[in-house]
């Protein structure tokens, strides 16, 4: 049979699956490089020897246009022209959206497959465009398109919950998070979270675990950005505990944000964790070690070294809070070395700072550092300016770090 006939046969299959509402198989063949697609394209090629059949046919219904554009996108993808592939995939997606308004829950799975493909093609198209020094706007377009699908899912009016389109909402929300964060549009993320909160979706724990984990990860990330550490910790801990065993990279990503939160609370990452996740070790391992040893010099050096990395992650200011723990450890060492006497003179502290490699710190600055420690609660006692000593309390002048930090919450 000729190429055109093969293509119309393939269009029949799309239409048949659409009529049968065969969600699984439809989603499978609608992927860019599915087996069915390659089979069809190979047959067309063998029959015709060129792609004219693809280029001359016009889709009449939404589904036939969808299938035709899908085949074109696959061809372009295989040839490596991601920009054209993206354009074809976008028109295929628009056609699908037209048909999607009449589908119920069975259309969600194919929609998710198409959105994923659109996202991946947009990334690659932008990469190609930036290499040829053209403005790379495909990702923005894809975001807008996927947003359409997302709102169709979220505002679905179907009264029956088990065939409602709402079950795809969180998956698309996660995809949109990834897109927005790539474009650094945090305000869009926050507005989307608000929109989801006010809409009438089934509760998050009824959705598949994958959706839950990913959504909580992103929500925790945004809370971390907004300096709401308690909410961030709740979400991140859930995500980490329920993340799939084999998803190593995802767990690393969760830990990248969770570790500073735990460190601020005084729980340093264990050696076992640092062994299992070398990226975490590289970022926070040295800092944790320096903080617990009270090595302020090393801590400052590592902070300066890793500044770019931490700033790009958005965790630099959080890690700065850990410095207080390092200062407390250093003072505790000085206290121990002086034989645990209940009077710690400023001059001794000054000498200790000098030996620790921090240079000549003036007495005024020592006093302010000690006042900071006392006011936070790391040191129990008081400072006497006339005598130049810190009078420490008889029991537990240096209370344990975690209890102090927990009490100060």
């Amino acid at each position, binding site marked *: 049979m000729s190429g055109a006939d093969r293509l119309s046969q393939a269009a*029949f299959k799309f239409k048949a699956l659409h009529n049968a509402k065969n*969600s699984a198989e439809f989603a499978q063949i609608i992927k*860019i490089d599915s087996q069915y697609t390659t089979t069809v394209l190979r047959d067309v090629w063998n029959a015709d020897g060129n792609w004219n059949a693809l280029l001359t046919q016009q889709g009449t219904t939404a589904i036939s246009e969808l299938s035709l554009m899908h085949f074109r996108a696959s061809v372009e993808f295989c040839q490596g022209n991601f920009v054209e592939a993206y354009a074809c995939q976008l028109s295929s997606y628009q056609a699908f959206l037209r048909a999607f308004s009449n589908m119920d829950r069975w259309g*969600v*799975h194919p929609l998710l497959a198409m959105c994923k493909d659109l996202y991946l093609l947009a990334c690659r198209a932008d990469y190609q465009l930036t290499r040829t020094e053209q403005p790379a706007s495909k990702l923005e377009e894809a975001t807008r398109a996927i947003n359409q699908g997302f709102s169709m899912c979220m505002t679905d009016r179907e009264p029956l919950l088990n065939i409602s389109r709402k079950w795809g909402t969180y998956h698309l929300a996660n995809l949109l998070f990834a897109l927005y964060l790539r474009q650094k549009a945090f305000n869009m993320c926050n507005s989307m979270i608000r929109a989801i909160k006010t809409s009438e979706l089934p509760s998050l724990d009824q959705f598949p675990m994958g959706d839950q984990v990913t959504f909580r990860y992103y929500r925790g990330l945004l809370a971390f950005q907004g300096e709401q550490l308690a909410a961030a910790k709740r979400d991140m801990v859930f995500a980490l505990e329920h993340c799939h065993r084999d998803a190593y990279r995802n767990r690393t990503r969760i830990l990248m944000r969770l570790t500073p939160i735990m460190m601020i609370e005084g729980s340093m990452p264990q050696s076992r964790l640092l062994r299992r996740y070398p990226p975490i070790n590289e970022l926070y391992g040295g800092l944790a070690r320096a903080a617990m040893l009270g090595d302020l010099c090393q801590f400052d050096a590592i902070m300066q070294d890793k500044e770019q990395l931490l700033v790009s992650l958005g965790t630099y200011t959080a890690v*700065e809070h850990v*410095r207080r723990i390092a200062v407390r450890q250093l003072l505790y060492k000085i206290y121990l070395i002086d034989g645990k006497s209940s009077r710690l003179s400023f001059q001794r502290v000054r000498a200790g700072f000098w030996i620790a490699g921090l240079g000549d710190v003036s007495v005024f600055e020592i006093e*302010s550092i000690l*006042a900071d420690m006392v006011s936070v609660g790391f040191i129990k006692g*008081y400072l006497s300016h006339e005598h130049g000593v810190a009078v420490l309390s008889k029991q537990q002048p240096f209370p344990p770090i975690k209890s102090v930090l927990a009490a100060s919450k």
Partner: protein
Amino acid sequence: QVEYTSPAPWHNQAYGLPPPQPSFATTPEHSHLVSGSSSTSSLATHLKVKDSAPIGFSNPSNHSSSNDHFTDYGAASGGQRSRSVTRVLSKSISEMSIEEEHGSLAGATWPNSRATQAPLYSAVKLGKIAKKKVAPYAPPPAGKLNGFAKAVSAGGEVKEAEWPLSLKRFVERSFAACSAKMRFVLEKQLKQIIASAKANKKLVTMDWDNRPLPKACNPGVRTIKGIAPAKPASFHADIGELPDDFDSDERKERRLLRFQKEAEAAKQAAYVSSQATMASVPHTGDVLNWDADTIVGTCTKLEKSYLRLTSAPDPAVVRPLPILRQTLDLLKHKWVENSNYTYVCDQFKSLRQDLIVQRITNGFTVEVYEQHARIALETNDLGEYNQCQTQLKQLYTMGLPGHSMEFLAYRILYFLYTRNKSDINTALAAMTATDKQDPAVRHALEVRYAMATGNYFRYFQLYACAPNMGGYLMDNFADRERCSALLKMCRAFRPQLGLAYISQTLAFDTADECAKFLASLNIPILCDGPQPSVDMKAALPYAVAAIQNYEKVDIKGQIY
């Protein structure tokens, strides 16, 4: 599913196709995509082999796992269930009661029931569904007034009833000849033409049939870049008749002046358009985006008070660039001589307005905004400062020269004032290494560090030596930091602290100022000893209360 484990048979030499050659493997992420294909050889070899799946892309094994994962999406669809089950389930929903009125189960028309749909794999002919075609614009039949004429006459002084027939035909012709985009402009022009014809009492006598169509009908007259904008034609030319004193000297001079201006405008437009596209501007021309709407001012008065624009600007009151330069010098002198902020701010705002209206964006604009920002900082007008800072940020990203480092430092200090942590993070991320070496920026970053690590002594040291106008900015939150530092000292120090020590640590100029500050917080100062001192324990509750005042930041900043 068939799983390919070896290269597909069509790669075989026996099929007459060349063996696969590696190509398009310029980047690692693409090399696995198109394994063994050459871009110029037959396209069949481009079809990907299944044994190497790209990262994150579909894989036969992925399919099965994702299928399992997604069964809950497909479970509720009608695809897997038998008809009877579907019917039973659908029947239990209350909405179906509407359908039941129409007949038996077999004839029910549930929206998604498979019973009523066409069976699978039927020989469906793809009928030709006519695509939606936008009807081409057909000119209205002669003599019939369409809505366009209404639009033109609406709001004008000339009523439709007064129009002669030739004028109506003229209006129709012009609307027929112009594109949809230009209709709005055409309406305006037609209104103008008709109003001037009426004013000259030529409405009826003028030969509308032979009059040339208004300018909006011609494509290509109004382009943003490249083509010189035509100066708006004079009042008389639109009428199509020469005025009586056409050849007089006065008119000749005016025409000469007009043509000179047009030539200048053409030169400038050509200069601007020969620059690079807007996207990557190193902006060198004076005016951004010159087009037919840009005006050049003619006013020569140096001072002008600020009035919010409610209509199109009149060139007679707008000052051109050379005058504006003189104005800036004058304002600088005036500010130094007598610090009348309301007057100077007003003048600066009108100066900025003239710049915006004439779309002048160059080093001078930057200078104006910088000066206004500095003056606003000195008088602590944070609203104006913020406006200038936003504009300056845009101008700096366009590549215009100015004191960008100084204003970056101000930006950081402002974020510290508003405690805007997310913006601090983004500012830190956007800074380059060269930015961090500038002394003003370094100072601001050290202030941030001192505040983050709770080192109030270092903070007040930095406060005392702030460069440029940073001190004025830091004044805004100095009291807040003093309160928090005082709180720390009250918690830590016992039994008393000398007033001199407190005033020195909190960077007060004199001990009296410190005393006033403490008195404003109701903290008692004991004068019985050799020096005045403060009882820390007694002062603690006052210090705690003082901090509560600063929990919310003013609306010009961010609400904390």
